[in-house]
């Protein structure tokens, strides 16, 4: 592998600065040292034949820039401004992280069901929980971005949901501040939903920066026996190199219901891995991605059925405009012994422009008998027949297209519980598509 040493030196230097300033327990110091070592050994992944996970995403533009400055401070940020760029409801609990730092003035937690800690707080309140869970799912030994995040995060949020009562939504917002230099932003979130608990979590990543910057985010979610999480992940960082990882572990009888919404980025990656590691676990993964211009978005979704009687649904929709490029890849694995698995995956794409391009390659690997699995992929333009039907009722071409696009997204949008979140995402969807934006 050909490396550009100055870039990697800069990352090492950033690690050393942080190591001097952050007071961390020994086990975490050692973990981070190991992680930066792994990152330097692995280097950024290279798109080449044989490297399936990165087949369609060329990271050279990202690898050429050292994203080693800390995110710039952003003291001007206010709750009012946030409501312009984020979904909001007075019912929700909110935690806001700006450039990796906790903002108390933009956070309020009223629900008693969720424990929300910064890293320092969590190491005081629940040190063993953190040590038992952190980096157990986002394995950094063979993953450069997991390694980079583990080595360089400035703070982390630790959320523990307890109790069987239905909680209010918890919205965790990670803001990438505006700034000139190529900075690196490393959001880290650890979520534990304890045995039998039910909870609802929104994670959102919003970029205010205009220059190239890197967001390399890692979220780890543990669902204990019978736990249930309604989860939303919003990525709206068009100017970023955004590499997002979501790692989920599910014990017996747990349920994970997740909706991802992604706008494209300079280079975007939505990297999800769900392990159904207890019998009768259920994972429902929905996704809507909306790309335009020169944006690139690579969805890499893996679901691992390890134990019997698991159910998974993977249903994604893409809407592509401009000369954007989207990818849907990854595999549903059914391990030996995961009998009676019921798994389906589907990715459909709507192309609003001739220049837009999608590579949709859902895959199944089945090593168990007595399973029910299916998959499908499709891509196409707005159907002429449908367009004519609407126009024959008086709708002009633009309005008709808009209605069809909205209908296409409905399969995913219908999976969103909170009404405020749904209407926000409908708005963002149309605002993100130049072909439709003029219509208001």
């Amino acid at each position, binding site marked *: 592998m050909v490396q550009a040493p100055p870039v990697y030196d800069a990352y090492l230097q950033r690690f050393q600065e942080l190591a001097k300033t952050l007071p961390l327990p020994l086990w975490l110091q050692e973990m981070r040292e190991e992680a930066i070592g792994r990152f330097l050994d692995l280097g950024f992944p290279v798109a080449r034949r044989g490297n399936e996970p990165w087949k369609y995403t060329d990271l050279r533009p990202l690898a050429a820039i050292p994203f080693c400055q800390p995110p710039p401070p952003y003291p001007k940020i206010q709750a009012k401004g946030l409501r312009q760029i984020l979904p909001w409801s007075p019912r929700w609990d909110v935690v806001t992280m700006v450039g990796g730092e906790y903002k108390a003035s933009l956070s309020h937690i009223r629900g008693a069901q969720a424990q929300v800690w910064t890293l320092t707080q969590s190491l005081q309140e629940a040190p063993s929980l953190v040590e038992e869970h952190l980096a157990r799912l986002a394995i950094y030994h063979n993953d450069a971005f997991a390694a980079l995040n583990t080595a360089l995060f400035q703070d982390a949020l630790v959320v523990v949901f307890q109790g069987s009562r239905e909680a209010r939504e918890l919205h965790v917002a990670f803001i990438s501040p505006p700034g000139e230099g190529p900075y690196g932003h490393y959001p880290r979130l650890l979520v534990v939903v304890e045995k039998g608990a039910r909870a609802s979590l929104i994670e959102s990543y919003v970029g205010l920066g205009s220059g190239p910057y890197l967001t390399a985010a890692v979220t780890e979610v543990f669902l204990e026996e019978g736990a249930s999480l309604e989860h939303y992940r919003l990525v709206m960082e068009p100017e970023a190199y955004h590499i997002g990882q979501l790692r989920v572990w599910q014990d017996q009888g747990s349920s994970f219901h997740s909706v991802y919404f992604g706008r494209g980025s300079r280079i975007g990656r939505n990297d999800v891995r769900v392990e159904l590691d207890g019998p009768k676990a259920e994972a429902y993964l929905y996704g809507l991605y909306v790309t335009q211009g020169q944006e690139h978005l690579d969805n890499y979704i893996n679901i691992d059925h390890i134990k019997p009687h698991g159910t998974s649904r993977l249903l994604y929709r893409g809407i592509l405009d401009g000369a954007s490029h989207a990818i849907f890849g990854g595999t549903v694995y059914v391990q030996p012994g995961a009998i009676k698995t019921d798994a389906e995956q589907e990715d459909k794409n709507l192309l609003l422009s001739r220049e837009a391009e999608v590579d949709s390659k859902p895959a199944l690997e089945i090593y168990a008998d007595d399973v029910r699995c299916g998959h499908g992929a499709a891509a196409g333009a707005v*159907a*002429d*027949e*449908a367009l*004519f*039907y*609407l*126009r*024959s*009722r*008086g*709708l*002009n*071409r633009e*309005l*008709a297209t808009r*209605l*069809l696009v*909205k*209908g*296409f*997204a*409905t*399969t995913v949008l219908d999976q969103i519980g909170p009404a405020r979140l749904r209407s926000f995402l409908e708005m963002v969807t149309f605002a993100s598509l130049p072909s439709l934006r003029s219509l208001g």
Partner: protein
Amino acid sequence: MTQDVILEIRGLRAGVGDVEILKGIDLTIRLGETHAIMGPNGSGKSTLVNVLAGKPEYEAWAGQVTYKGRDLLQMPPDERAREGLFLAFQYPVELPGVRIREFLRAALDSIREHHGLDKLSVREFNRLLQEKAKEMGIDQDFLRRNVNEGFSGGEKKRHEIFQLLLLDPTLALLDETDSGLDVDALKIVADGINRFRGPQKAILLVTHYQRILNYVAPDYVHILIDGRIVASGGKELALEVEAKGYEWLRQTVGG
């Protein structure tokens, strides 16, 4: 009748791709009239209404079509609709994820805006929707569904006529609206069509069978064979065709 001419077709030749399907059609429709066009499969019935509605792959090769005094063939399909032309589809298109209510709201708003009318308030729209739904025996649950998605054949046709009543156009083109309907469904659909009829309305109804004409009595019947109107007359012509078959006419006119 001396009513205003709403549609005038002169020497219309049209086809799909390289295939000529209509080989010279002449037809005049006045306000207040109901015209039925009958013909065997492949005679060009559907092509005629699709050309009139502006379906993209149907091309007019020659001839003139004047609608409300304007050159219809120069108007885009959505403008034709806003100007009061309505096509009830033989095969209504499924629109996944598009709710009936939102679809009809957008259609009605587009038409009203075109005529310089204010949009209906939510309340006014709901009242109108309820009224027309009731007329067609359509219930609330149905209105929450997606347009034509998973509808039975009968539901699709009923939904077409429901739209006809709601959008209230001037000229209705009905493309085999009777096909695939049992007698009960046919009656509901025919009742809807009759409710639409009036001195300021006109209908061009295309059908393979005479059956629907027992419920929707036409003023004129035209027989279309091989892209030409080979006979025109009153509703008794439909009964004659029913009794003797299209072959009889083909031989009579030497087609």
